[in-house]
């Protein structure tokens, strides 16, 4: 039998989502009436037709083996008619129509190590980036920090015991693949030393004008070393942004002792009540201390606890801090305020207080 050459297909796009929707969704598409959280991790959506859909939400580590995906597929076959979806925060949701399946599914997920929760006023999965698992730019690992932090905050995933939802995000460098800059708490890996230039490799690997142009602060200029065209970095002008490294691999930034994490607070993306806002700097630097990053874990836990104790119902981290003011936040959380907290880049000056509106506190 002659083998037929199959025509190579391109630009077919993703499969149409309709192929993967459960019948209850096809039937009630655009005709949902209301929903409620039945218990932590279980949503019930009720359609105008009276149909009820239960979504059982379980945590996944984002970095998942195919073995686990197959397990989820098997669980979906057993409990939810073969239907499941993922959330934007890397949770998996089983789309259950038979109410009796909910408890056995939850129990099974728990035994397999994928606990159910993350709905309502809780802490759900931390969105995060690649870290040392895969990225060239990482100033910290992502998965390890996230695992360590979530192990500690785990009770807040399973219970809905916070004033409002609390979103945590992690990015391992200022590229911020996860755009973590608008989270209640962001953990952000950063470099703190100017990059080193490999003068032998640079001429072969990089275009000099592109490299020079890549620097937002103009810290890079052309230089001749051993008769070869390369670049030098004016160290005082460098803010360790890694932009040069992204265009020129012969420039490296990783530094075992000086790389680490910073903590930012009070951002949000939803429009509910307060407009979306950026996270602001709480802690400029904490060391990389694998495998469990105890300093980062303790710092995040402290901020969560101070928030949980002091914020009012429905108040997100940023709304709470706005109400009490930043001086009070730093005092309550017992975090030192330093010169690094004051912006000196593009937005410098925008946040200087230019009034006498100060919530004075009696001498401690």
């Amino acid at each position, binding site marked *: 039998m002659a083998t037929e050459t199959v025509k190579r297909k391109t630009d077919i796009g993703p499969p149409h989502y309709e192929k993967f929707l459960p019948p209850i969704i096809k039937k009630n598409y655009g005709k949902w009436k209301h929903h409620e959280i039945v218990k932590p991790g279980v949503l019930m959506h009720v359609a105008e037709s009276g149909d009820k859909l239960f979504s059982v939400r379980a*945590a996944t580590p984002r970095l*998942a083996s195919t073995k686990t995906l197959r397990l989820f597929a098997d669980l979906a076959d057993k409990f939810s008619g073969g239907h499941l979806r993922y959330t934007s925060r890397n949770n998996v949701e089983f789309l259950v129509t038979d109410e009796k399946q909910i408890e056995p599914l939850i129990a099974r997920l728990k035994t397999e190590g994928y606990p159910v929760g993350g709905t309502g006023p809780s802490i759900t999965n931390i969105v995060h980036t690649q870290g040392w698992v895969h990225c060239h730019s990482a100033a910290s690992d992502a998965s390890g920090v996230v695992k360590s932090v979530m192990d500690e905050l785990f009770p807040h995933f399973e219970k809905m015991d916070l004033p409002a939802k609390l979103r945590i995000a992690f990015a391992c460098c200022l590229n911020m693949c996860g755009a973590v800059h608008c989270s209640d708490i962001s953990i952000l890996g950063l470099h703190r030393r100017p990059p080193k230039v490999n003068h032998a490799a640079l001429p072969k690997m990089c275009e000099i004008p592109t490299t020079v142009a890549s620097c937002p602060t103009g810290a890079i200029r052309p230089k001749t070393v051993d008769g070869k065209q390369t670049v030098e970095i004016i160290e005082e002008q460098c803010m360790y942004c890694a932009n040069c490294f992204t265009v020129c691999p012969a420039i490296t930034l990783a530094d075992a002792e000086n790389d680490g994490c910073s903590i930012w607070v009070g951002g949000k993306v939803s429009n509910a009540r307060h407009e979306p806002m950026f996270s602001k700097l709480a802690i400029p630097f904490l060391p990389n201390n694998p495998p469990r990053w105890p300093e980062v874990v303790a710092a995040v836990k402290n901020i969560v606890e101070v928030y949980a104790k002091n914020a009012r119902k429905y108040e997100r981290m940023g709304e709470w801090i706005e109400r009490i003011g930043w001086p009070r936040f730093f005092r309550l959380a017992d975090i030192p305020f330093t010169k690094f907290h004051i912006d000196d880049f593009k937005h410098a000056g925008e946040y200087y207080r230019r009034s006498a509106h100060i919530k004075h506190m009696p001498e401690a």
Partner: protein
Amino acid sequence: MADKKRSTPKLDELEKGPWPSFVKEMKQAAEKSATAADALGILERSYNDKIGHWKHGGIVGVKGYGGGVIGRYNDIPQDFPDVAEFHTVRVNQPAGWFYTSDALRKLCDIWERHGSGLTNMHGSTGDIVFLGTKTPELEPIFSELTEAGFDLGGSGSDMRTPSCCCGMARCEWACYDTMGLTYDLTMHYQDELHRPAFPYKFKIKAAGCPNDCVASVARADLSIIGTWRDNIQMNKDAVAACATGGKVDIGKDVVAKCPSKCMDWDGKNLSIDNGNCVRCMHCINVMPKALAPGKDRGATILVGSKAPIIEGALLSAVMVPFLKLEAPYSDLKELIGAMWELWGEHGKNRERIGEFIQRVGLGNFLEQIGLEPVPEMVTQPRTNPYIFYDVKK
């Protein structure tokens, strides 16, 4: 392959504790794949050295595409030869991230045949991420994917894979069909998705309502956020039930938290001054049975959010306060086309559209793409009196 065990005492620590462990996942994959085993080994090395061991590599990909694959190599290949190449394949996810068990298994089959068996469900942009394979596997992966009805997502300076919330599939608050729109745009712009030709990346995210479950306002160059123009729908009986239900204190939890101070509650009647409502969703979120978005629905179109690289982080800014979003979405496509043309021609290398708008000025940008300025686009008019008048006009 399975005998290729390496000692990973540091990572083993991360198998403990209640949160799902990525180390357990990596070990599962390592049982079948030498690539995954070496990935585990090199990660342990990073945990000891406190630096990463990956280099960004040359351009790899599949024939005819400029995006979808991220080349990755390590800097100690002599120690970890099976991850000397460790490329990532981005697979365009189905809109809303819905799967059948069969579809998931099909993806697993392909990835176990040709890669490490490690995945991200999903990457930051929304793609299914296959983590770790070698150059010769790329074409086979691609042809098996397309055979199974899947295609690659974006990377580099192209339109990145659009993504969205589950919208009308499950959410009563969806003000337009997020999944329908996302699928439509993805199909319409296949060329822009697969063949990078922009100054830099361009991300699209579609959220069905102002709750913005996909963080579009912070994570997309084009943020499409559902909203409505008419009055919030109110079910008086449900309001009364809410008032006596004991779970919600309408005065304290709803009215006092309304950012526009446009609600009134006298203990019996709830009234809303809809003309002053900013459509924030708070009252609807708290009283989902009593309140709902209006019936005249569409979306606010915002442009330009991005992470700090290069000129600092931005949130998206309002470009069209309200747009009806109905298939075939011609006005939206016209707007996208006009923006791409201007930015494509005048944007600098690696300049996101948000930065471009900051550089040329929103007023000039609007003029160039043919949009009228309206006060909804700003929080206030300028205070700075140095105005560039059009002296030539």
